[in-house]
């Protein structure tokens, strides 16, 4: 009886510490009906991690699979943080961007990960192998699965082919917020891509100045989602940043034809029009952008554009101004 009570206390203590909630794998019949029962990407390279350096090893694995010639030693200089004895997720994204690859973060569920593996893409995952209060953060690469045996195959740490139980993996993965990353070449798309996730990843290339890779990704996105204004906005922004204002202006106009309420396209078109002396048109677009941006995080930036346009002079009647 006493032993039983002890066992119950221990169980409660561990459950409280680990948050021992059981996480469903989400593998409903509908979610996996389109997947092959077994996949293993045997050609994915393996790099045994050096001490604490699972980040560089896992990242080298997925980058090489996306045709980037890079070693874990090279990547240690980019993503290993000595003072933290580990690597941060954001630095893995950054190192992917500077190599002109699209860091696509997957939806937080197992079927979304398996679907990438089935399409031939290894998935970099974060796990917490320890407990919530005593975490042991780890990066590994998922390279295969077996739906019947309910197992997953990982390149992990110093183990080239680690076979783990699905439910057990999901527990460690859930403790790392179901973080999963695929590294995609900019002229390709991940399997079953999500517009917002893909555009965010592509736009992050633009944001750090990888303009050619960003443009490739935007072109690919435009082919996939012809009705979305965002790829056009992205391409116009790349043109602008490269100094091709003519293409940029055409691009913003095209984007506004797809979505008249796109704040970025309105704002940036106002900027260009003001720059070439079309003040009345610029004011119209800036005012519209300011109205759309009210209450959003863009409000102050758009208001600044509107002020700049309002104070702009040098009316210039030669050029054709009216575009929309």
């Amino acid at each position: 009886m006493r032993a039983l009570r002890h066992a119950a206390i221990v169980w409660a203590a561990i459950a409280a510490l680990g948050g021992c909630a059981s996480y469903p794998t989400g593998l409903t019949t509908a979610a996996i009906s389109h997947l092959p029962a077994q996949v293993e990407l045997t050609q994915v390279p393996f790099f045994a991690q050096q001490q604490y350096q699972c980040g560089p090893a896992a990242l080298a694995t997925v980058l090489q699979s996306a045709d980037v010639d890079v070693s874990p030693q090279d990547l240690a200089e980019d993503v290993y943080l000595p003072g933290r004895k580990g690597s941060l997720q954001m630095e893995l994204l950054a190192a992917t961007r500077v190599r002109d690859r699209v860091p696509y973060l997957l939806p937080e569920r197992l079927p979304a990960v398996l679907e990438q593996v089935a399409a031939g893409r290894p998935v970099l995952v974060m796990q917490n192998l320890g407990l919530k209060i005593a975490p042991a953060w780890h990066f590994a690469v998922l390279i295969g699965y077996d739906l019947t045996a309910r197992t997953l195959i990982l390149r992990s740490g110093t183990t080239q082919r680690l076979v783990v139980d699905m439910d057990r993996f999901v527990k460690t993965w859930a403790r790392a917020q179901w973080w999963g990353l695929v590294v995609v070449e900019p002229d390709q798309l991940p399997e079953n891509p999500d517009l917002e996730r893909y555009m965010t990843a592509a736009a992050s290339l633009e944001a750090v100045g990888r303009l050619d890779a960003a443009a490739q990704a935007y072109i690919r996105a435009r082919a996939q989602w012809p009705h979305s204004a965002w790829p056009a906005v992205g391409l116009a922004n790349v043109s602008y940043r490269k100094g091709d204002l003519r293409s940029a202006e055409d691009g913003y106009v095209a984007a506004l034809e797809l979505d008249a309420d796109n704040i970025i396209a309105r704002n940036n078109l106002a900027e260009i029009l003001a720059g070439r002396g079309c003040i009345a048109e610029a004011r119209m677009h800036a005012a519209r952008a300011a109205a759309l941006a009210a209450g959003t995080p863009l409000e102050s930036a758009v208001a600044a554009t509107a002020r700049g346009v309002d104070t702009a002079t040098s009316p210039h009647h030669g050029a054709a101004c009216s575009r929309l």
Partner: protein
Amino acid sequence: MAGLFRKTVVYALIASLLGLGSPMAAQAEILGTLAGLESARRGADLERIGGVLAREQVREQMHALGVKEGQIEARLAGLTDAELRTLAERIDNMPAGAGLFELVGVVFVVLLILEAVGVIDIFKKFP
């Protein structure tokens, strides 16, 4: 004379900080695609510190965390403004993937718990 010189320098500095008379105003800055997507996704998110300040803070933090001087700029180059702000605030306690080497500590904690609730009796063996 020296006072006048100092005053001039101070005013010039203030003017340059305020962006007055900056020759770089030739091309206005556009709004990035990422800013638009992030704005559409999240609700109002007040940026507590600006991008430039965040970059400077992360530079110092990386230095303090042992990144070699020559590697810091290359590492900052791939980070977005939003990421820099997050790092500036949380670089010391964000999850850092390390691998199984940390597990020794976890085993120790579990043993301690088991000891505390009386299931095991390892530690009392050592006086």
